[in-house]
Each structure stands twice: as structure tokens, then as C-alpha cells.
């Protein structure tokens, strides 16, 4: 290629065209680079998320037991959702669970991040301890939580008895089962929220705080007028992720209560699983899956728009 290059003003038309072609190809090549980079992700996402999602929509229009032949039902499964009291119970349980866990785990995560952002002895160890449940399998954490909350020989009840409070039927009474799950969820999710907030806190320039201190701003005012606004992007990200997590919770509940007592901890994904693998109604389970997808999508769009508006205001 170097031989074909011609100094400007020299004769030889072909030598002038070649670089144009080369530039054009180089330009196209540059255009292709991002697609090449995202191709593996797109392929994996299509294979393991998008195509299964389309297939779930297809299955939701059928009566299929997974092991037998499928029978076309049209929109019957979606109409059944509307008049199935257990679906609405599972939906309200899911919303209640999200309400109980999302704000609290975010607030506690922020408090922890603020505490562990300071110079403390054993800070790294404490951060690791709080983050540990995030990296451990949900089934393992669920099993540990089930042992902690066990009515008969759990650590928590043993402590309560020693304190003279008496036993609480954590997992076997409808009024205590959901709070027990919420506490276990806080334990699991706290570390993740803490790490995200910690990263966001460390990205705030210390300059702002120094200027505020010079102007005589108290610690509380600094937190309110510097920290909170600059943490907004992290807060929105966590809000979306925590709501999605709460809507999709399964393993922890499967291990701790299996959706009981009664239907007090039956969440949407529990009900989907039960319909798919216990009563072999794969079509109905898929219809619920599609409904859950639409719900999460709706929440995400609303939050995303709210976050855009908040950013514009800032």
C-alpha cells in the first residue's frame, strides 16, 4: 500500500483513487468495529433471553404440560389471569415484598457505605463481610437463613429464649413469614447496595466538600446538598435493580417457606414455578411470565424517564 501512495500534485490517476477506496473501506471498517464488539453479547442475549422470551409468548397461547403435545388456546391463559385470585394474591405479595425490601435495603446500604467510606480499622474486612452474601449462592444463603429462623432450633429463637422473650414462629405463621423473608433479603442485598453507593461516594470530588466547609456548611447540609444529589444516578440504578430483584425473587423463598404458610409468601415467580413444574401448566406459567415481564418493563420505563427528568433538572 505504501508504494501506491502519491505525493499531492503528482500525475497518475489510479494512485489517487486507491487511497479514496482505502479510506472508504477503512471508514466502513471503523463503523463495523462497534458491532463486532457487541456481537457476542447480542448473540448470547438473543440465544438465552430474547428468543426464549418470544418462545414463552408462543407457549403462553397454548395448553402444554411440557411432556405432552401442545394445544392452541389463543388468549385463554391471559383471560384466566384476570379471574385467578391466586395470581392477584401473588402479585400483591410481590409488591408488598418489594415495598418492604427495596427502600430499606437501599437506605441501610447507603448508611453502611457512608460508615465504611471513612477511615476505620478493619474497613476492608467489614466491607468483605457485608458483601459476602452477594457472592454466595442464593440457595446457600436461603438455607442458612432457614436455619437461623427455624422455629424449633434456630439461632434467633435460641437467643430470644435466652433473653426471656420467648419463641416466635417465624416461618410457620402467616404474619411472621413475610417479615422473616424481608429480613433475610436485607441481609443478602445490603452488601450489593453498599458497594454501589461506596463506588458512587468515592467518585464525588472532595473539592465540593472543602468548599462547603469553608462556607460553613454543617455535615448534615453537606450530605443533603452535595452527597444526595450527586448520588442520584446510583440511586436510580439501584432502585431499578432492586425492584427487578424483588419481582424475580425465587430461590430464597423456595428454600425458606416454599410460598407458605398458606399463600402468605407466594410470589409471582413461585406461582409460575408451581404452575410449570408442579401442576404441569406450562402455557399458564408462560402467560404469567409474560405478565411479569410487562410489569418489570413498565416499572423500568417509568423509572428511567424519571431519572432522565431528574438529570435534566440537575
Amino acid at each position: 500500500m505504501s508504494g501506491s501512495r502519491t505525493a499531492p500534485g503528482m500525475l497518475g490517476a489510479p494512485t489517487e483513487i486507491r487511497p479514496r477506496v482505502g479510506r472508504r473501506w477503512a471508514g466502513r471498517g471503523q463503523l463495523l468495529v462497534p458491532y463486532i464488539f457487541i456481537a457476542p453479547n447480542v448473540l448470547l442475549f438473543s440465544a438465552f433471553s430474547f428468543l426464549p422470551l418470544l418462545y414463552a409468548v408462543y407457549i403462553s397461547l397454548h395448553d402444554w404440560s411440557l411432556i405432552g403435545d401442545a394445544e392452541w388456546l389463543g388468549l385463554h391463559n391471559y383471560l384466566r389471569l384476570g379471574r385467578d385470585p391466586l395470581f392477584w394474591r401473588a402479585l400483591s405479595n410481590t409488591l408488598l415484598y418489594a415495598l418492604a425490601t427495596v427502600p430499606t435495603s437501599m437506605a441501610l446500604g447507603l448508611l453502611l457505605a457512608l460508615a465504611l467510606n471513612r477511615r476505620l480499622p478493619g474497613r476492608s474486612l467489614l466491607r468483605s463481610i457485608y458483601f459476602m452474601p452477594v457472592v454466595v449462592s442464593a440457595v446457600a444463603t436461603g438455607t442458612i437463613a432457614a436455619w437461623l429462623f427455624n422455629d424449633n432450633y434456630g439461632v434467633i429463637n435460641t437467643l430470644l429464649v435466652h433473653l426471656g422473650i420467648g419463641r416466635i414462629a417465624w416461618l410457620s405463621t402467616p404474619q411472621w413469614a413475610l417479615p422473616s423473608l424481608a429480613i433475610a433479603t436485607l441481609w443478602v442485598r445490603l452488601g450489593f447496595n453498599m458497594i454501589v453507593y461506596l463506588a458512587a461516594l468515592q467518585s464525588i470530588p472532595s473539592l465540593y466538600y472543602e468548599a462547603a466547609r469553608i462556607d460553613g456548611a454543617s455535615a448534615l447540609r453537606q450530605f443533603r446538598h452535595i452527597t444526595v444529589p450527586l448520588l442520584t444516578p446510583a440511586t436510580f440504578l439501584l432502585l431499578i435493580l432492586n425492584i427487578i430483584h424483588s419481582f424475580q425473587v425465587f430461590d430464597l423463598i423456595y428454600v425458606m417457606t416454599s410460598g407458605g404458610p398458606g399463600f402468605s409468601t407466594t410470589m409471582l415467580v413461585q406461582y409460575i414455578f408451581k404452575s410449570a413444574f408442579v401442576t404441569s401448566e406450562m402455557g399458564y406459567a408462560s402467560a404469567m411470565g409474560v405478565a411479569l415481564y410487562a410489569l418489570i418493563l413498565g416499572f423500568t420505563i417509568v423509572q428511567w424517564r424519571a431519572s432522565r427528568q431528574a438529570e435534566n433538572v440537575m
Partner: protein
Amino acid sequence: MEARISNTAASSRRFGRRALLGAGVAGGVLGGSRRARTQTKTTITMAVWGAQAEEAAFNAAIAAYQALHPDIAIRLELSGNSTQVYQLVDTRLAGRQAPDIFRIQYQQVGRYAAARALADLGPHVDAAYLTDFAPAFRQAVTYKGRVFAIPHHTDTFALYYNRDMLQKIGVEAPASLAQSWSWQDFLLVARDLKQKAGAPFGFAMSWQNMAAYRWLPFLYQHGGQLLNAELTQPMLAGAAGVETIAWTQSWFKEGLVPPSTSIKSSEQPQNLFANGTIGMLLGGDWQIPFLEKTMTKFGWGVTYMPRDVAMASDLGGNCLAVTRDSKHPEVAADVLKFMASREAMRDFVSRAQFLPVRSSLMGEKLPYALRPEAMQVFVEQSATIPAHLVSTVTMPVFSKINNALGDQLDLAFTSGQDPAATAKAIDAQVQAVLGG
């Protein structure tokens, strides 16, 4: 001469090389044929669940079969419980990659057979082979007149008791089926265990993780049944059904059982029995190896299920089936026939603490590895399984009925749902399942 010698030497070297090459090719061919023979070895996959004793018993049966058939390899795929195996098999059936053989409860045969997920064993198993199996189990593996599984073993329920605690309250466990406790006597003992023997709770029932069908024996003991004789209509809302729900609900209301032992719970009641939290356990024979190993602080024994106007116990146990995806249904069926043969069955049930399903083994004293005297109680109790219960739980739609039963009974036990309302809700859901 030198040249000739040289030529000869060269030729000799050439010969040597050719000979080596030839030997190599021959070796390759021979080796290849050996490899080819190895490659033609048929592999059969077998999905089962089970605790240590069951795994060991399956492995012993597999080793015995492979010793007789060196050209067949059986790969055991072990899961923790039956739910996991069904989930695995269902998913692989959907992908046309199901294992050749799987362990299946009698209650599930109808569901799989109706969905044409099982191989019809008719061409591989002649009628004479099945004559030795007890009629209830032959019935359980037959769907629309065709055989879809081979009975392998059974288990049933009896009553474990803490010997030390019973001595403390001065009560002796019934020594024969005829002397089994009435419902009233049973609850009196449970109350005494709680009040006088230091047990936090009187007893617990092993029906967790949605094994709601294990509630049915109490219904039959009280003279009721879930469905009519033709299995076409629910009939739980009658007096017997409502009273049985009320009686089992009273265990929870009165605090005789731990609240964590309802049907949807994942509590392991054998742990509670082993550590003295409960004084009695309504449980199955497969729990013996666990108790033998872990219940070291108390002595324990086994007696008969309580009874009311009738005696009844649970139909437990499993059969073995070949899936429709098996590439070698003949070989898989042959493995099944071997596993359910008289000798293999005797060995399996003795090792894993189950009961045989062959009539010729039922009267025989089997060499149980643990507590043969306790196993005798289970053997006698198994004679009380009602035929109508067998017909009910082996219906193809029974998994849906079981789900309705579990959901509603759990509401009655944990949320105090009225027994009449519970019976009515179950009947409505069963009616919907039956297509009424």
C-alpha cells in the same frame, strides 16, 4: 559382495520397516476393533433420587447387572428428591433428551403415561413376569390396559415413638396391629408426652414439601374417601371429610405438633424426633437409616398407625419406567426386569429399608440391614392400604388434585381456615380438575 551384502542389508532394513509398518497396521486394526467393540458398549442412563442407603442399593444392583452384561454400562444420575427428578425428566423430555430409565412414584405413572412420555413395556415384558407382583402395584403401573413401569418397592407409614419418653409417662406401645391406638388414645398419649415427658410437642407428621396425599389415610381411617367409587366426583365435603380435616387441624390448634410441620413447610420432622422436640413421628420406613445414625440420645421403637373406624396407611414407594426418548428401550426394559427380579428386589429392599412388591417376598423374613423388628411393623401395616386409595392416587390427574389438597389443608392448618370451607374448596378444585 559388499554391494550384495549392502543390498541385502538394505532390503532387510526395508523388510524390517515394512514388517514394523505391517505390525503397526495390524495392531491398529486389532486395536481399532477393540476400540470399536468398546464404542459399541451400550450406555443406559438412569435418573433416581435417594439418600445414601438408596444410592448404595442402586449401585449394588447396577454392579450385579453389569457383571452379567459386560457390554452394557448403566450411568446413575442421582438427585436429592423426587421433585428434582421430575423437573429434570420433564425438561429433558421437552428437549427429547430424557434419560433411558427413571425412578417414578406410583402416583405419577398415570400423568406420564397419559402424556405418552413413557415407553409401553408390553413388547418387552410378558404377562407371566408380572404375575408375582401384588395386584395393587400391577394396577398402579397399568394405564388403559398397558404396562408403563415395573413395580420396584413400596413403603408405608407407621408410628415411631421415643421409648424413653413413653416409659416416663408409663405407656406401652401397641404390640400388634389389632391393638393399635384409636384416634382418641393417640391424642391422649401426645398430650401426656407434651405435659409430662418434657417433649415440647407431642408428635409430627411427615407430609412436608407438598406430600399432601399422605393425609388421605386419616380420611380412610375415618370412613371417608376423596372421590366416589367411580373416581368421577369429589366427596370430601361430606361429614367424614370435614371431621377428618377438623381432627388433623386440632393437632395444630392444640399445639400438639410444631407449627412448622404443616404440608407446605420444608421442616424435616425426623430431625425434631431425633433431637427430642417431638415424642412421636408419623413416618415411613425409609427414615430408619437416618434415625439409626442420628438419634443417639434416646431409645426409639416403631408401632402401628392410629386408627378410627378403619385402619389405613399410605401407598408409598416407587417403580421404574423407560422414557419414550430411550434409544435402547429393549435393553432398558431388560435392566428394569433385572432390578425388579426376585433376588435383586430382595437385595434392594433389605439394603435401603423398603418393602417388597412381589407376593413371593412379602411373607418372607428379609435380611434387613437395620432394625428388622421395626420393618416387620411396616410390613404388617402395608396390608392396611385401601384399594380405593391406590386407585385415587394413581390417576393421571392426581398431581393437580394433590396440589389442591396441599394448598387448602395448609390454609386450614396454618391460617385456621374453617374445615367445612376447606373441604368445599378442595371439592371445587378437584371437580375442576376432573372436568366437571
